[in-house]
């Protein structure tokens, strides 16, 4: 193809990719009941330049900003759905969360060492593996209109382990900076200050937006658009200042929730806006991955995925009855916590300013992200269906 034609076509690459991924998602959903987001991932990966496709490396491009916005919306919704009061009434839930997250950290760290991964990347990998992908969990739960104990617990445990993962990640990062640069101030800045300021910005938004809605007597109607606009602003702001958009968005949702300015059920996923951005998000994430890196780390990836699944599912199963549900629903909760890709890729993308190419350097992470981008949503969807919590066709 002549170079000039390629240049001409470049601006339509992303819209075309989104269109193709969307079509793939709908077809696979109709014919194989495959979660749409799995198809978006497969399509995105196949269309990436590193796989011979037409999508250039998206990191650092404007489309990355859009993907971050998409993820902010999801994290806001996740935060919004977290009821901290539940932890108070059911302390076993907190125990489950702490054990499954720290257990995963330790197990994955040990697995990484067994694969001769150096200490710092092994710690980073362990921190990332703690998290469950909020994007996959919420999309699957919302698409299947799932509701019940497994769904509620997966949503809460995902929020908690995502927060723990960000904290662990930033602390390891701080430790790394301290080790390599020997600068204690820079180290503290990268961990503690970033965490606190990000949370602070989120809190500020969480207080200001509902107050504004109440002031304009719009609490009922325009809440969804208002929250989306605020999320857009929050993404840009935290990104520009190099704080953590992830943490800020989660805090935003958690604080906003307590003001009873409702996101109605119809507006789950932020409606059509959320649907559109989800295609972009999952294509973006998969397009960030390179086949080369995926194949390199495949064995480590499988070992990490297995260790992670064992720790999470064992914890949720053993503590199921103490926390008020049966063994079976406990086991399905652990299973549904499998996805992790989007969270990890965006977290790495957002720390690019520190050290480019970390996605390549944390061994095995590309392979884990790729495998779980496809398998994760399928596992979550199956778990929710087995738990009988998805909306199924009835007489009417």
């Amino acid at each position, binding site marked *: 193809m002549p170079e000039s034609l390629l240049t001409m076509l470049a601006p339509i690459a992303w819209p075309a990719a989104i269109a193709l991924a969307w079509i793939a998602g709908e077809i696979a959903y109709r014919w194989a009941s495959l979660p749409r987001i799995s198809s978006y991932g497969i399509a995105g990966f196949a269309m990436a330049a590193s796989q011979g496709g037409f999508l250039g490396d998206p990191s650092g491009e404007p489309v990355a900003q859009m993907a971050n916005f998409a993820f902010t919306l999801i994290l806001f919704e996740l935060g919004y759905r977290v009821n901290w*009061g539940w932890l108070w009434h059911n302390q076993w839930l907190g125990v489950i969360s702490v054990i499954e997250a720290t257990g995963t950290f330790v197990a994955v760290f040990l697995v990484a060492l067994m694969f001769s991964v150096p200490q710092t990347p092994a710690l980073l990998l362990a921190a990332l593996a703690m998290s469950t992908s909020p994007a996959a969990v919420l999309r699957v739960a919302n698409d299947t209109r799932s509701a019940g104990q497994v769904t509620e617990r997966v949503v809460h445990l995902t929020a908690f382990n995502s927060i723990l993962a960000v904290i662990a990640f930033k602390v390891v990062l701080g430790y790394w900076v301290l080790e390599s640069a020997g600068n204690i101030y820079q180290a503290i800045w990268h961990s503690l200050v970033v965490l606190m300021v990000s949370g602070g910005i989120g809190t500020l938004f969480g207080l200001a937006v509902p107050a504004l809605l109440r002031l304009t007597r719009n609490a009922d109607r325009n809440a969804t658009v208002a929250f989306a606009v605020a999320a857009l602003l929050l993404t840009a702001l935290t990104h520009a200042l190099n704080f953590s958009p992830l943490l800020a968005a989660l805090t935003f949702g958690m604080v906003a929730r307590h003001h009873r300015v409702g996101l109605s059920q119809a507006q789950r996923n932020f409606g059509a806006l959320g649907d559109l951005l989800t295609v972009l998000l999952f294509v973006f994430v998969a397009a960030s991955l390179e086949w080369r890196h995926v194949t390199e780390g495949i064995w480590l990836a499988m070992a990490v995925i297995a260790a992670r699944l064992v720790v999470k599912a064992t914890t949720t199963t053993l503590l199921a009855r103490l926390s008020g549900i049966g063994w079976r629903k406990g086991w399905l909760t652990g299973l549904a916590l499998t996805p992790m890709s989007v969270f990890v890729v965006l977290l790495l993308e957002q720390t690019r300013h520190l050290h480019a190419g970390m996605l390549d350097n944390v061994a095995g992470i590309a392979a884990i992200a790729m495998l779980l981008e496809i398998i994760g949503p399928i596992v979550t969807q199956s778990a929710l269906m087995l738990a009988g919590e998805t909306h199924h066709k009835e007489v009417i």
Partner: protein
Amino acid sequence: MALETFKAGTSLTMGVELELQLVNPTDFDLTPAAGDMLDLLARKPFPGDVKPEITESMIEVSTDVHTRHDELLTQLRHIRDVLVVAGDRLNVGLCGGGTHPFQHWSERRIFSKPRFNELSVLYGYLAKQFTVFGQHVHIGCASANEGLYLLHALNRYLPHFIALSASSPFSQGADTLFDSARLNSVFAFPLSGRAPFLLDWAEFEGAYFTKMEKTGVVKSMKDFYWDIRPKPEYGTIELRVCDTPLTVERAAALAAYLQALCHMLLERNDPPPREDDYLVYNYNRFQACRFGLDGFLVHPQTNETLSLREDILATLRRLAPHAAALGGGAALDELQNVAAGAGNHASLLRRTYANEQSPLAMVDAAMLHFRKTAAP
């Protein structure tokens, strides 16, 4: 299946059934949590009975048989506390209220049980529309004929119960202008309404039930959705027009009101019921549903137009000695307060909406009212 024998028991015992809403505390919409709640509640003895209802966002509790208001209230509070603790463990909110203000019927799921599945097939969308929450009060009868007598003698007082219990002003996201929109969902069923005017059990069985059974339309008393129906296997009559109030205190008070009323009716000082009483029945019932305590009713025997509020207050005064005899004075005081000024729970919910401009706030308020012990 023939009509069961009426198991006559002690007059004026009472029992209460409450259908309750299961709510997600995040979006305040109904949530299909009945299965998880029942699993958890099954681990310990329950202070009464708890069972599923037609859709998965409902749960029904019932008390034992009581003779005194305070004992009934104690058990209802105990039931409430056990439910609230279980709900807290599962992140499920519970509340009363005859309707959920903004749930969409099509989102509901039928609780998987043969009878509910059959009803869903037969009634189509009416089955899911039936995600409304009522209070049923049983009154024990010494004989089947006493039951039929009370059932018809109560016709003139039925609007009282609708107006006092009304707690369903909103439906499917909008203000209906009704105080009890719930009953409109009940009226849609072909076998709803009132029982045929028969005062003799043998006649009821032979001239009505057996004929109906032969038509194939009904199999048991359960298939009738009447406002008041006899429940032969319990030896009771069952009043079914009340919305589930927001508090168990109000629920107990309504039961005690019915008990005192039956106590008075059994003295047979009121003129006996007549078929013609039912000429104004549907009109009076509509007035109570639509306007609550501000409605007007037509006295079926004098044709006099009465303010529903005044009629309730007058009845409460007449009932004072009867309630005193039964130990239900406190219950009547609560209802006196409702009728004289405080208003029913429909008006409480409307006030909440007016203050907060959010339908979610109504559910939030309902959940708070349910869990706290209301001031006496």
